[in-house]
């Protein structure tokens, strides 16, 4: 049976009704903790969290937006007790540093939106998504002990993993395992300790317009990295954890090189770009002679490839 299911369909009516009465609550002004705020909100509401460190493990609620004041200064610290944030269907989280959990954000059979966060220093994966349809956009995923993003059995038909900067994670930047389908575009993978992109043979991953640079290996043989992908120094403003700013400098080759002519990596604008399959060129195999082509999988060193790229 084929379902034409899209993210957020199921509560269409409920959402509309609730949206009329949607409210915003503020932490810590109205509620001392994020968890306490979640106990007092409904579908369609927003929890706005002011800057500060919140030592909590948070479970998102369905249809509730959790908004941080500033991703650099609004911090949820999971205290190594479990996932820092547990995803929920149609939940949304943005504007936080999410750190020190086992997983940064854990999604099990769920469909959250995760965007504009810094997910770092977690002791498992930065984001672990199992049989879920997460929309992961514009996040920094940095220095997590295991994979930056672990996707297991994810079948993301209409959602994207886009414009994320995935740096220095213990295993791969992204590990896509089990059967499923994932769309990756406009992401930057740098300095991950195994692969930039690792794809299981059962997983169908569309990989367009990403920059995969200076990982232990760029990607494995099942990752269909076509010539729209790059392998260039993204020229981050600062990759030091003491002054972390993974936006790209003005002279970065990432600007305007993403799918839909948006920037690769963190992007301030809207990332509404053409849907998967709209560009026939994107399905062509990688051409290593191209200036912008990504390095070949596994064996060849990225360094030599990058040098080749830079020399042109």
């Amino acid at each position, binding site marked *: *049976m*084929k*379902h*034409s*299911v899209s993210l957020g*369909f*199921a*509560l269409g*009516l*409920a959402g509309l*009704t*609730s949206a009329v009465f949607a409210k915003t609550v503020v932490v810590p002004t109205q509620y001392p903790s994020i968890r306490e705020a*979640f*106990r*007092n909100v*409904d*579908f369609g509401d927003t929890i706005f969290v002011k800057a500060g460190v919140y030592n909590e493990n948070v479970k998102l*609620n*369905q249809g509730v937006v959790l908004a941080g004041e500033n991703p650099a200064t609004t911090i949820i610290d999971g205290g*190594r*007790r479990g996932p820092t944030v547990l995803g*929920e*269907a*149609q939940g949304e989280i943005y504007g936080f540093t999410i*750190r020190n959990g*086992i997983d940064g954000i854990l999604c*099990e*059979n*769920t*469909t959250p939106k995760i965007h504009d966060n810094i997910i*770092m*220093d977690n*002791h*498992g*994966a930065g984001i672990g998504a*199992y*049989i879920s*349809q997460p929309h992961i956009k514009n996040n920094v995923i*940095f*220095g997590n*002990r*295991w*994979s930056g993003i*672990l996707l*297991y*059995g994810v079948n993301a*038909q209409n959602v994207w993993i886009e414009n994320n900067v995935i740096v*220095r994670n213990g*295993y791969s930047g992204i*590990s896509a*395992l*089990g059967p499923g389908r994932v769309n990756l575009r406009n992401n930057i993978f740098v300095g991950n*300790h*195994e692969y930039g992109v690792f794809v299981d043979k059962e997983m169908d991953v569309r990989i367009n317009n990403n920059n995969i640079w200076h990982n*232990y*290996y760029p990607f*494995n043989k099942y990752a269909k990295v076509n010539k729209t992908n790059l392998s260039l120094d993204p020229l981050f403003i600062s990759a030091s*954890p*003491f002054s*972390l700013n993974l936006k790209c400098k003005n002279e970065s080759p990432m600007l305007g090189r993403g799918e839909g002519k948006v920037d690769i990596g963190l992007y301030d604008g809207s990332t509404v770009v053409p849907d998967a399959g709209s560009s026939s060129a994107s399905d062509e195999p990688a051409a290593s002679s191209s200036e912008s082509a990504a390095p070949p999988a596994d064996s060849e060193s990225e360094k030599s490839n990058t040098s080749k790229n830079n020399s042109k």
Partner: protein
Amino acid sequence: MNNARNAALAATLLLSGNALALEYSKTRYQQTDYFGDFGTNTAAFINPGNITDADQTEVMFGMYSTVNGKAGLEYVSGVFPIGYNHTIGASVFINGATVDKTEGVVDAGSTTWRKDAILLGYGYRVFHWMTLGANVQVLNFNNFGDAKTYPIATDVGVLFNPFQNSKTGFLKIGGSVQNAYQQPGFDNTQNVNLGVHWLGLDRSLEGRAEFSMIDFTGQSQNAWAVGALYFMSPNVALGGKITREGFPMLSFSGNAQRLAIIRYFEIELDISHDGISWEDQKRGLLWNVKLTSRFGPTREEVQGSKRYTRLIREPEEAFQAAMKLYLQRRFLESAYSFGRVVVKYPTYRKADIASYYQGKSLENMEMNAVAKKVYQTGIQNYDASAYVPKYYFQLLNIAYKESNWSEAQNNYNIIASQYKSSDIKSDADYVMGQAYFAQGKDSESRQLLESIGKDDANYGYAQYTLGQIATREGKLEEAQQRFEAVLTRQPRNKSEKDLQEAAAVRLGHVLYSLPQPQLTRALDLYTQVPSNSSYYDEAQLAAAWCFVRNAASNPKFWDDANKHIDNIMDKAPTSILIPEGHLVKGYGQLSRKDCGNAVKSFETVQQMIGKGFLTAEEIQKKTTDYQTATADSSEVMEKVYQLSLQLPSERVLDKRAAVKPNIDRIATAKEDFFKFQDIVNKQKKFEKDKARLEKDATYALATAKKCLESAGTGGTEF
């Protein structure tokens, strides 16, 4: 192996600082550089808690040697992570020597000295910042033939990881007690080891410091070691260390990943020269090699696979749990549970079915308005689903129940045109046929109902309605056949049993009405209807009339008729047919010239007709009460619908609990009102027969009174 066999000798040489001092020293057997180096991570010899750091099956081989072959040791270790928190390890140290007797070292009749150890270790991550570990060691000790024993000892350790982040790096602080317990014959010192290990700057710099109190329960002496390693690239590192025995060493490390089945391979080499040690022992170049390989899935992959396996079953389990509630007719709970399946698992292959049963659950609670929403949403969201015609059918069914004939027609048209090969088509034909019948469109109804085949579950119902149509059209022979068709089927459920009872009564009426009445068969059918049937009163009255019809020829039949009337009064005392029962009784009494009682019976009929069952005021009041009690019905229905589409958070559960009393109140009001409406409907039917009854009762009463008067004057014959 010669090197290995000389290990004990070498150890002694190293430790004593005297190349010729060949006396065995138990003091530092487990505190030599090899144990210190080799044991740090994998073998867990220094701190058994360390092995929890391994996130993958790891096999390590280590070898220490001097170029001149004076000393050596071999070592193999394996570590196996289990789940997220458990790790086990096993290590084998091969340590021994065969000494040339000419050196005059021993005089024990044997040239072999061995002290091999087998370790089994276990580490448990108590918290993510603290690990406990323990080893059990078995020693194979042969001191030049003096003894060959297998004593056991244990080590215990604790490891703390106060921080682990990109800024400050990864810090481990550990403490352990070696040989915390040892059997007699193990014969080693008890040592306390403290260690610090730091890895930082994006894993590019590693530092280590260790401090040991050797034989802390006896002649305590200390040892320390420090080292650092810098990764110039992810593959290559250089560093240096000062060993426990004071050797400055140069360290090199190189690694590669994903080499066929080996996920990670590392070679570490430490080299030094005796000439640069604190005291030159004339042993030349010293070297120490460690090879580390990791195999198989990582903890992340194993945990991920387990989690995936669990999660892939989760929707099915949730669906089955919801279905169980539905089958138990716990419709509110099943509506919530199916809603959860729909929302939580939108890509689950049965999400469309869950949505369908969510609607059915609501429909079963008479929440038709919101059930329609569910079906309409299902049609929209699962447009390729095999359940789409079922959604349309339920919409048709609701429209039929609400007598919304145009909507019923629209939904039926969709099924008939777009899903004519669907298995729901015959159900749709039946319901639409019923809808036509209810509208008095007998020919349209007949056309649809006649298309329902014998094998179809609706066949009996269709035949019943066709029997009613035939009766209405005066086609008694056909009606007889239709009702017979219902009765010849084996009922599979209560609904079909009810249908057969109704058919029996209808067929009885047909047989009674034939030009040549078949009263015996009719009576047989009437008396088959059980007392708990809703057709019981009608069947009993009809049975009574069968006897009355022949009572002229056999007056005893009045008694039989009376028995059936008494059955109604006894088993169905609120029946609207009781006035007619009294009428029949009166006729019987009159026939027996029991005129006084006959007068009473006919007067009772008149009184009951006059009074009726319900007054207009009563009906109005009940209706008003019902409307008041269910005024918020739409609002409550909408709440239930919304809540059925919200995942059960604490707050949502509170809301569900809050709305429950309102649901119960409305359900009770509806149930009461439906029962009341049934009475009202019967009253309407009664009103239709009222004129006939009144006329009959009036005439019969006059006759009875006349009879009574005549009885007083000598009697009159009828």
